[in-house]
């Protein structure tokens, strides 16, 4: 007979990665997912992707600019961030991230600038007079080849960021729920769901309900990504049944012992089904499937970070995380959301995001590019 054990004395450890980490992984995931959605338009000039590409590139910019703020805030010594560059350690995925992330941001901004370049000249005439000089300086002829090169470079940097963010968690053997080669793929697929969701939401907020084609296109992307998430989840279950996955074993142990985790598992499944159902049943209400998709992408990361950290490694049971109200908790989450709203307002007002130059691969004649933007979109 197994003994009954009661833990009388132990300590509880605080979580080392705060909700800031959730915000960073959420926002950088959205940015990369959105860039991937934008690239068929901005890199290959596919005509059917142009409107989707326009809103997705804006999402990529907004979330890409907000993400590093949350990352820096998650450091307990944020003013020592330069140590990443003074003492880089190649053995650490996080150290690689310190190089990949700025490269991604730089290339994303450069790509967006090349996309907006022709329309920025127009913006100099029609936009705020205070900024007309700046827009004139930034604007100019379309540079299709440079645009494609920057798009390709941004894609490579995005893949590098995806790899480092996924591997950073997957290499941690001490946390079996992270220590699975499937986690980087899960982060990727859920980021695509979230990016499609954010694009749907911004589409409604900035464009309105009129453009049904774009909404349908984004909803198809959302459904496709959600199917990908479900497929990876099933593969994880399959590997678990084969008995070779410590990640699965720990999850099952928690599920059988902990009602909170049962609720969490049910919530995750429902959160994935909900945006798909909304996109399927209410295709005209893109904002609804968008919001639900954002909820799924965020709560998946919340579970991955905060719930997994609630499992102590040297104590019994489960030490539930209680969200503090200060900057380490709720205020950090609200603050990051506020930054995103601010960037939505600023960037959507200032950038000619609805009229991006999308060079078609087959139309490399620069003469066909700048003047035809508004007709194309």
């Amino acid at each position: 007979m197994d003994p009954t054990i009661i833990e009388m004395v132990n300590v509880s450890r605080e979580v080392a990665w705060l909700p800031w980490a959730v915000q960073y992984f959420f926002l950088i995931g959205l940015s990369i997912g959105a860039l991937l959605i934008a690239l068929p338009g901005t890199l290959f000039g596919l005509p059917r992707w142009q409107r989707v590409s326009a809103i997705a590139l804006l999402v990529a910019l907004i979330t890409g600019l907000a993400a590093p703020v949350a990352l820096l805030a998650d450091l307990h010594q944020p003013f020592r961030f330069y140590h990443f560059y003074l003492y880089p350690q190649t053995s650490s995925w996080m150290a690689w991230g310190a190089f990949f992330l700025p490269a991604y941001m730089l290339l994303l901004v450069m790509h967006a600038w090349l996309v907006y370049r022709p329309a920025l000249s127009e913006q100099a005439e029609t936009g705020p007079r205070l900024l007309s000089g700046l827009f004139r300086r930034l604007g100019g002829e379309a540079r299709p080849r440079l645009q494609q090169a920057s798009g390709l470079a941004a894609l490579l940097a995005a893949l590098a960021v995806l790899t480092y963010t996924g591997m950073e968690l997957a290499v941690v053997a001490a946390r079996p729920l992270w220590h699975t080669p499937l986690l980087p793929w899960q982060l990727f697929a859920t980021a695509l769901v979230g990016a499609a969701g954010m694009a749907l939401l911004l589409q409604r907020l900035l464009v309105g309900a009129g453009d049904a084609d774009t909404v349908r296109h984004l909803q198809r992307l959302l459904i496709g990504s959600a199917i990908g998430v479900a497929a990876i989840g099933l593969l994880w279950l399959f590997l678990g049944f084969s008995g070779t996955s410590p990640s699965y074993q720990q999850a099952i142990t928690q599920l059988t012992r902990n009602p909170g985790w049962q609720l969490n598992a049910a919530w995750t499944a429902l959160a994935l089904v909900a945006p798909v159902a909304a996109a399927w049943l209410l295709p005209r209400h893109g904002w609804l499937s968008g919001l639900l998709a954002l909820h799924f992408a965020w709560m998946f990361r919340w579970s991955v970070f905060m719930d997994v950290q609630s499992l102590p490694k040297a104590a019994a049971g489960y030490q539930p995380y209680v969200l503090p109200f200060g900057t380490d908790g709720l205020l950090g989450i609200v603050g990051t959301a506020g930054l995103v709203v601010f960037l939505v307002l600023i960037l959507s007002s200032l950038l000619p995001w609805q009229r991006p130059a999308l060079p078609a691969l087959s139309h490399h004649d620069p003469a066909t590019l700048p003047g035809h933007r508004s007709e194309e979109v």
Partner: protein
Amino acid sequence: MKINRRSFLKSAGVLAAGTASAPAAAAEAAAEPTPRWAMLIDLRKCIGCQACTVSCIHENAVPEDSYRTVVTTYEVASEGRVDAYMLPRLCNHCANPPCVPVCPVGATWAEPGGAVLVDNERCVGCGYCVQACPYDARFINHETQTADKCTFCLHRVEVGLLPACVESCVGGARIFGDLNEPDGDLRRAMDEAESLKVLRPEQGTAPHVFYIGLEPEFAGDVDAEPVLWAARAERR
């Protein structure tokens, strides 16, 4: 505590020699083999008094609500008999420490003597090492806002003293010393032990805190009911 006295006299000798002939002392020190510090905890002798926990806090100025070592204590009921089980925990100063390679800025490393240390002036407080430690032996020190952990009291060991937890152990359950010293108390106790165990051997970290009397139920995840939640949890 033969090793303590010997270490102490040896270091006192080096200090005395230093006053007379520093180069000679340096040459003697260079000729000495590198120690491999380790700890053996005889669980049969631990009475769960937490003297080690408290002395560590005092010795190392560990902030409130943080611990570099603690004696986890369990009530074990089996076949009508109820026992207490005490398991002191601390950093295992692994030979293959998973906390070291993940550090993005090289702020943590294993000394030649095996003690795993943190440079809290370089540490950025990213918490990655805290995640990577399978023993929950690291934490963020909120006074320095950097990673913190047991150092094997290297500042004491280097001057011939024992770690504070060893020095204060009432039952003599903790034995500290140099694995490379064949006649040392640690080596002798380990050679005499019938069975030596480490925590979470499956992690491949090669811990250098060894246990006598470590039951398999306690070597990894402990399937126990946390007493603080006992009122809410359903009794099995």
